[in-house]
């Protein structure tokens, strides 16, 4: 366990060093939020409620989603893993008693801790400006269950990124796959619009897929888009199921991939 603690601490340091990357991403997110604000503001100009929610509630949803992504989102983990496989850096892990998944996951947790805390700073500026628009439900149970859902969501996002990274064993370039999956995730994860606005059948279908649980589900718990406790427990069950399936898939791809892997040089 000690060795992963060290990986975690190194992850913390290296993420604090690359503050510039964070600043750039935070800046883009701000613009994205402006697009959301303008688009949905215009959509609400002719109506008071969309899907049973006010403009304030919808804006809160997007803000929670954005902040949450800084805590749980996997952003370039897939590329980093891909890079390590391609240039042979993983060879050193094959020779040592270190589990590559746990090593990578420790760094991921450290990275998200840094970006998560850092995003709270601009948030301190944004919240007073947007105060009139923000409305969150007051049920206390939403906080612990939402946090658990966030932890599972982080595992799902990391596992998906890890799978894409491992594709490097089979393909030279994974960028196409990653950007393709980003399109699917942005729709089915609820980043483009709250998923409950989908037609009933499409919403129920989305609930069966892992993307629903990687972003939309925790955000929906926090913002009251899922009303009753029963639905939350059921969701957590399915979410846990996806965590297990994806962890299994990671293991499968790792062992199969290593069979194809050739380590050259010293």
């Amino acid at each position, binding site marked *: 366990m000690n060795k992963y603690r060290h990986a975690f601490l190194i992850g913390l340091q290296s993420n604090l060093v690359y503050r510039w990357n964070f600043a750039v991403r935070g800046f883009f997110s701000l613009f994205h939020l402006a697009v959301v604000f303008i688009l949905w503001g215009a959509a609400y100009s002719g*109506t008071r409620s*969309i899907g049973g929610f006010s403009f304030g509630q919808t804006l809160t949803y997007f803000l929670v989603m954005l902040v949450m992504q800084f805590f749980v989102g996997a952003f370039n983990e897939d590329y980093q893993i891909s890079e390590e496989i391609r240039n042979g850096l993983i060879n050193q892990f094959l020779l040592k008693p270190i589990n590559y998944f746990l090593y990578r996951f420790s760094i991921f947790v450290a990275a998200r801790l840094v970006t998560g805390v850092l995003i709270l700073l601009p948030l301190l500026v944004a919240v007073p400006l947007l105060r009139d628009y923000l409305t969150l439900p007051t049920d206390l149970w939403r906080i612990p269950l939402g946090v658990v859902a966030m932890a599972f969501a982080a595992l799902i996002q990391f596992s998906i990124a890890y799978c894409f990274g491992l594709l490097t064993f089979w393909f030279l370039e994974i960028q196409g796959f990653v950007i393709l999956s980003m399109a699917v995730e942005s729709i089915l994860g609820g980043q483009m619009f709250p998923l409950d606005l989908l037609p009933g059948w499409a919403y129920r279908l989305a609930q069966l897929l892992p993307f629903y649980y990687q972003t939309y589900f925790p955000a929906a718990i926090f913002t009251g888009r899922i009303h009753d406790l029963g639905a939350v427990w059921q969701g957590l069950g399915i979410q846990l199921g996806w965590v297990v399936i994806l962890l299994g898939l990671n293991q499968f791809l790792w062992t199969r991939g290593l069979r194809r892997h050739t380590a050259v040089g010293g």
Partner: protein
Amino acid sequence: MTRYLQIWLASARYSIVRTLMFRFDFFLWATVELFWMSVNLLMISVIYDHTNSIAGWSKYEMLLLVGTSLLVQRFLMGFFWSSIFELGRNIRSGYFDFFLAQPGNILFMASTRKLDLDGILNSFVAMGVVAYSAHRLGLHPSAADLALYAVMIACGLVIHYSMLVLSISVAFWITSAQGIEGIYFTLSEFSRLPREAFRGLASLVFVWLLPVVVVSNAPAQTLLHGFQPVWALALLAAALLWLGAAVFVFHRGLRRYSSASS
């Protein structure tokens, strides 16, 4: 002029041969672009399931706007994206020397080297979206309107090209600025919104200071409501201004370029 056309045709031929060699890549990237276009269209259609208007625009008017915005972006992707993206990487790595040694305008040589057939292919999908929306709206644009629309799309392409060159040129000053081309993508998100949705500060920044809203709204307005001199002039002026700025900044940056290694 004909010499540059010959150079461009030679690059195009090379790109086609390359695409034929890497067919899987071509299909993959064509699918990637198609998916991202669908994401935008799906979002619009889901919002219109719950409301009738966005800033006074009906569903098919909005789809026509989004289709127009996607069309300009597809052309940029097809004709210039790969070359300009590599330009940024080459400035950082020092490989840019290769272009400096070529007998021709450096910006032209460096930004037209590669064509992406997947982007060009998907521009037909975007045209399809525009044509379908126009059909659903019962529009019958005259040949003159269509010609004007095409000219405006070309102006929009010039503006997008300039914005991309400007953001990549940052690499001359800040060599560590990776992912800086993200600026372009973030700004292009605004071009899918109707002009009327922008108020106050947002209107000042995105309609007047940055041309992102005019690029898509001007051609869309032409198809929807016919020729409007104000929109056309605004677009033309923005295209000239931004191209001028891009050429100026690029050449200023070029003076700072100090190669790397031997």
